[in-house]
């Protein structure tokens, strides 16, 4: 070992230093080389069945599979020798002789490793002149996954994921040889709440999503790197949209948060963003109104209520920047009662967090208290209320105790001034996820071009009630910089440090 837990080896003539204990596929990544692989997955056990990662290792009599060859000091590996390329072409040919080649109707097209490696290593013609094997197609594996055995290359990633990560061990292999096919044990329906991850890790089009099937070709879609907001975990995701409608979410790798996975609930929970019943413009006294009118009216109501007390109820679905703006407004208005509602539910051992919102931590850090079970016996001149996206709401009785109501909501409801909320995929911002990790949301779609984000509305409200208010932040990044300067827990963080992978808060008494 060359020290520091590093091993030095030569890959395709280039000397690289890699962490001890990695395999040749991972070592090759360090050397900027992709060793093609199907069955190997960094988070699953190594089975070595696809055989496309064969490489030559000097001193070994026959080619070795990169996935099960562990680096040693002084090892000399060839990933692109004539022999390796010939065998790779051979494996590609074997994989394709019984494959239906139905890319034109396959959802995987565009993100298919068979397509990718066929372009890189395939021969372009077939030498196989026999009837292809016939296997089950369009097999429903329950509510979420569809299986096509003819497209399957039997890499067993799905088998291993369900056994080793999800812990349900519910898929196995039936038959043998080229009749081998995957089956779901028992009644043939998957049960795991994480089952859709097998669609992501399936390197080919054998497993497709019932939710996303046939909705769009990938190359017509836009992709946004953001996070899931269904619980406090904040799983990193890539959100796919088309024509400003959310079509799917898939996990984005982040070893500190969700690794390679996400739960099915979070993945499938986006319909509210596309909801046609959503509020698309503010309303004043039940009637549609432009933003300036709504802001003016809301400012007047809040100003007027100063003497009688104002109840501010934030939402844990708001970003830190929005909460910071709300805090500024509350300070300007002298609001004493500052709360937020926190939806809770069941969690599990893998990813699902019992807090069913992305930013309860941020709300607490910005000075909002978790709503009490018993509200104080008092009345308020006005209520400034951000309705949680789901999972919690103020009791009717409490709403009646406020004389005037300024409400931010997704859907129409009763209020003196009603302002539309935007969903997480319509704005940039940050939240504080479980483990006190600051993570970034990114704008991916525009639901309605005239919608303003909550931060902009709040800053305008602030300007309307506070002559001392300085110029509002132009961007979420700017707002975050101001927040960091203002709230010590955010300390040395910057927008860039948070990046797309997130960063821990300065405060270390992390709550799980």
């Amino acid at each position: 070992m060359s020290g520091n837990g590093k091993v030095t080896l030569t890959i395709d003539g280039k000397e690289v230093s890699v962490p001890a204990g990695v395999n040749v596929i991972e070592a090759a990544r360090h050397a900027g080389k992709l060793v093609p692989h199907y069955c190997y997955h960094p988070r699953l056990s190594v089975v070595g069945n696809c055989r496309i990662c064969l490489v030559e290792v000097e001193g070994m009599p026959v080619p070795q599979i990169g996935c099960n060859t562990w680096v040693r000091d002084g090892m000399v590996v060839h990933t692109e020798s004539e022999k390796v390329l010939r065998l790779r072409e051979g494996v590609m040919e074997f994989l394709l002789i019984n494959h239906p080649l139905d890319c034109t109707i396959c959802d995987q097209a565009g993100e298919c490793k068979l397509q990718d490696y066929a372009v890189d290593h395939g021969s372009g013609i077939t030498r196989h002149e026999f009837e292809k094997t016939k296997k089950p197609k369009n097999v429903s594996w329950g509510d979420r996954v569809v299986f096509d055995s003819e497209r399957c290359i039997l890499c067993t990633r799905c088998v291993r994921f369900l056994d080793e990560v999800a812990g349900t061990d519910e898929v196995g292999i039936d038959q043998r040889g080229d009749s081998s096919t995957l089956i779901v044990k028992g009644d043939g329906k998957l049960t795991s709440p994480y089952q859709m991850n097998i669609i992501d890790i399936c390197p080919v089009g054998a497993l497709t999503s019932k939710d996303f099937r046939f909705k769009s070709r990938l190359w017509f879609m836009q992709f946004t790197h953001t996070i899931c907001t269904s619980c406090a975990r904040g799983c990193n995701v890539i959100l796919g949209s088309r024509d400003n409608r959310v079509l799917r979410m898939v996990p984005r790798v982040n070893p500190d948060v969700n690794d390679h996975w996400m739960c099915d609930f979070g993945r499938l929970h986006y319909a509210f963003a596309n909801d046609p019943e959503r509020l698309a413009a503010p309303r004043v006294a039940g009637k549609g109104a432009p933003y300036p009118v709504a802001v003016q009216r809301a400012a007047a109501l809040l100003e007027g209520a100063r003497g009688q007390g104002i109840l501010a109820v934030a939402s844990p679905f708001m970003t830190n920047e929005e909460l910071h703006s709300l805090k500024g407004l509350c300070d300007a208005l002298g609001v004493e009662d500052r709360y937020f509602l926190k939806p809770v539910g069941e969690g599990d051992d893998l990813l699902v967090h019992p807090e069913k919102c992305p930013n309860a931590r941020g709300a607490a850090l910005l000075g909002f208290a978790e709503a009490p079970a018993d509200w104080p016996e008092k009345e308020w001149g006005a209520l400034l209320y951000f309705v949680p996206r789901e999972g919690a709401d103020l009791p009717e009785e409490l709403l009646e105790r406020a004389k005037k109501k300024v409400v931010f909501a997704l859907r129409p409801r009763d209020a003196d001034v009603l302002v539309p909320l935007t969903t997480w995929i319509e704005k940039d911002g940050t939240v504080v996820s479980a483990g006190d990790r600051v993570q970034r949301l990114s704008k991916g779609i525009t639901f309605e071009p005239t919608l303003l984000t909550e931060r902009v509305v709040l800053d305008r409200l602030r300007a309307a009630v506070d002559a001392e208010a300085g110029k509002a932040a132009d961007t979420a990044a700017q707002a975050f910089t101001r927040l960091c300067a203002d709230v010590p827990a955010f300390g040395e963080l910057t927008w860039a440090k948070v990046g797309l992978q997130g960063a821990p808060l300065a405060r270390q008494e992390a709550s799980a």
Partner: protein
Amino acid sequence: MKETRVMLEFADDPAQRTLEGYRGNGGYQALEKALKEMKPDDVTEEVVKSGLRGRGGAGFPTGRKWKFVPKGNEKPKYIAVNADESEPGTCKDRVIMEQDPHQMLEGTLLAAYAVGATTAYVYIRGEYMECIATVEKAIEEARAANLVGKNILGTDFSCDIWVHPGAGAYICGEETALLTSLEGNRGYPRIKPPFPAVEGLWRCPTVVNNVETLACVTHIIKRGGPWFASLGCEGSTGTRLFGISGHVKRPGVYELECGKGTLREVIETFAGGTLSGRPIQGVFPGGSSFQVLKGDELDVRFDIDSVAKAGSSLGSGAIAVFDDSVRAVDVALNVAEFYAHESCGQCTPCREGADWVRNMLQRFADGEARKGDIELLMDVTDKMNGTTICALAVAIVFPIQSFLRKFRPEFEACIAKVTA
């Protein structure tokens, strides 16, 4: 040339199947000697001295295999007796199990003592109903006589033996697939490393030995490694059971000292040559997964190294003979059909390639092969060669490529004449 009966010395005596009969002929003396007079390492050393090589087909030196078992490892250790005899033509382990099962059990206990194993499993081919019954009965008898179980013969050594019948898959004779199957999983071979001696059954050190190998161990400990090494020839010591089958007058299992003659002499002397009297067209000297030898290539000395030098292998000692009444093309197809049927389907080249090879050979057999098919077959089998987890793909490559090389005119004759 004549037989040298060591393992089969008492095989014809029905009493030998019982513990009483076996003991009457000196049975379990080797075990007693080992447990009371030898240290475990002495047993291994004796086996090393004997020059014994595995009888399952690969011919790996048994003593060396035992030495791979790590010392000082706290995990339990296991012996897995490979009694899944399924290589086409092989039928010698069956004779041991049916007619003299205790010598295998005694060898198993000796191996367990040598490597420190406390449990042994005998993985018997599911079709071998009688073997399963006789071995199970033998274990019961031995257990009742304190030869299997706790504190064997009053010593500190304990070892239990269990029979585990297979379910009919050829692949389960591959040592890692055998272990996967023993664990209750689908019989898929596993990637090596780790090797079974280090991480085998339930990830514990496991020695996998063939039935005949363990039977030899009994005689080695009883009569000494040097005695065993004095039999046979250098590189192929002791006696071996050869199962001769195919187009011969007297098919059967014969116990011979290697190197005492040529393959042709073995076939002529013991099996009486071809039944039809027609010339031998070809022979598989060690099971169908190795290269075929043509009728004019049989004057090779029958020992592991000489047959290897001649481009084939003594394998599992299954000598399969075919005369010129069949077409070489059909024999090749028959072989390919077997392996295509038995491919477990795990590795891409074997799963997809095996049936492709079979289909192409069918086209030859039907006289409908295309020009270039021989080259295509060579290329496809080349890409299956050494590119899979286990040797099943190679068991297609070796014989088929040898057929294409050695019987090329026969294959060329099957290429369809273009008439258009």
